[in-house]
């Protein structure tokens, strides 16, 4: 699998492509992954670069919610979009495999994943998942992968039925709210996302905890991490599957070579951190798809 750090990747030469006949206009969705700062990037120069390179009109759509992007994929109204793994799985299911992941972002440390973590108050005396039996837990919100879907999936894989293992479960409405709920002693534990690397006392290198620490809203001394999930792969850049292979290849090359060919533009869209992109395949996201299927079946079965 190719990655931006590979030395031999060349930026695509400017010029009109064959596939332009099929793609008269390149419509790009920008949908944040778990890292919510993504969309505060500056995308103007990036769009111009796309236009200059492939010489077709390019439109960017900054979306706050993936439902619209999924419908647009389904209706053939969108060519390419960045999205979270959960959103990708939803799109894949909704279009019956009509979308395909091509790339995901790579962090500065070379990883392409993050983890879900379970935190409790430091003074609660809880130090392990076992001690959570019969305690209460708060998820962040029902659409969040790291704050709800994945931890439940992972816990079930560990043989724990989250609906019975805990005395009480609930939603906080968001990552931050869930953490506040723990600090306010409304719940014993909360689940949120983190990069999983770096100093735990600083809230790891990235994640909800880290950004709250940076704002001075919490102090990690008050919290303790008692569980972390398997790594979850970063959200993919997704294209419509029915587009020509040459188009997909061009997109891959464009992004893979972007950090080195146009470091300024890359920095603007990634807001600093990151080492570029790495190629991915659908197989790497299959677990998300399974997880969604399982959720849907669970739901039908009325839990």
């Amino acid at each position, binding site marked *: 699998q190719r990655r931006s750090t590979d030395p031999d990747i060349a930026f695509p030469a400017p010029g009109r492509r064959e596939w332009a006949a099929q793609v008269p206009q390149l419509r790009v969705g920008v949908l944040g992954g778990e890292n919510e700062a993504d969309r505060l990037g500056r995308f103007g120069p990036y769009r111009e670069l796309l236009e200059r390179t492939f010489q077709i009109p390019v439109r960017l759509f900054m979306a706050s*919610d*993936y*439902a619209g992007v*999924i*419908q647009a994929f389904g*209706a053939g109204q969108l060519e390419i979009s960045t999205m979270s793994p959960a959103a990708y799985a*939803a799109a894949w*299911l*909704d279009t019956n495999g009509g979308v395909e992941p091509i790339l995901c972002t790579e962090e500065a440390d070379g990883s392409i994943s993050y983890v879900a973590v379970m935190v409790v108050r430091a003074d609660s005396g809880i130090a392990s998942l076992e001690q959570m039996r019969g305690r209460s837990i*708060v998820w962040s*919100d*029902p*659409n969040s992968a790291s704050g709800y879907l994945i931890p439940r999936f992972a816990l079930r894989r560990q043989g724990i039925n989250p609906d019975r293992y805990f005395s009480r479960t*609930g*939603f*906080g*409405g*968001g990552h*931050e*709210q*869930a953490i*506040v*709920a723990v600090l*306010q002693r*409304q719940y014993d534990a909360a689940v949120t996302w983190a990069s999983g690397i770096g100093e735990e006392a600083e809230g790891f290198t990235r994640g909800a905890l880290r950004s709250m620490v940076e704002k001075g809203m919490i102090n990690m001394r008050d919290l303790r991490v008692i569980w972390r999930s398997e790594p979850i792969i970063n959200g993919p850049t997704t294209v419509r599957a029915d587009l020509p292979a040459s188009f997909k290849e061009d997109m891959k090359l464009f992004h893979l070579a972007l950090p080195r060919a146009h470091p300024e533009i890359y920095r603007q869209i990634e807001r600093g951190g990151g080492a570029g992109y790495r190629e991915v395949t659908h197989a790497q996201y299959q677990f998300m798809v399974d997880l*969604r299927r399982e*959720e*849907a079946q669970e*739901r*039908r079965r*009325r839990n």
Partner: protein
Amino acid sequence: MTAAASAVARGEAAFRAARRRKRSAALLGAAILLGCFLLSAWIAEADPATLRAGLPRIGEYFRRILPTLRWEVLFAGTGTEGSLAFWFYRLDSWALLLWETAQMAALATLTGFAAAALLAFPAARNLAPGPLAYHLARRSLEGLRTVPDLVIALILVWAFGVGPLAGILAIALHSTGALGKLFAEAIENADLGPWEGVRAAGGSWAQACRFAVLPQVLPNLLSYGLLRFEINLRSASVIGFVGAGGIGEELYTAIASNYYEEVSAIVLLIILAVACVDLLSERVRHRVIGAMEGAR
């Protein structure tokens, strides 16, 4: 005769002058409106061709969310695909959610209604007891409805933790701002004759509000209040945002997870609730307006 003729001529001249003035004002207004229209249409990319091509496809999404019901099994059990029971398989939990949400919305709307009714009298230009009270009331209403309810909700989460309490308070605050403005405008439209009557009888400001203005505007206030109740009933963002669930949050979950048939089922339930509130609103309003029949 000549006097009359000259009066007519003068009147006609004045009419023409007024018409010219009105016409040029109207023309200017229309030009500005047209300009704004074209500019916003351009920004919004409202291309007639796109519209023509796309509008026939609006039905697509609605077709997707509607279930495929089959006659033969319409009244079969939850397990049979194509039956009503299969479509509404979570009816019990949805009904419960709707009920719970209605309670939260009712409490929030009630609080907001009361606060707005108190603030709206000083915020009405024609009744304001003084410039200070007027500006204070106006500005606070403006602030309350401009600060996004999500921001209010997050601030309240830090104060009261997650759950209905923060959500209800956030909605109540937002409703106060939204209703207060509407109330103030209704009050500004009221007839001031009775107001003078009560004041002239030595009634205080509050008494005049209560006896002279409130009876006039009550039907309006009630209908705005019930409309706001309806909006709060549907509003998902805030209640979901503070983790208090609600039917709106359930709808968003169904939409985001593409549980299509559930979307239409929940929407139908909400429509039912909305229709109930509307019927109630109509009845209450006409009761308050009373038999206006032949009011001379």
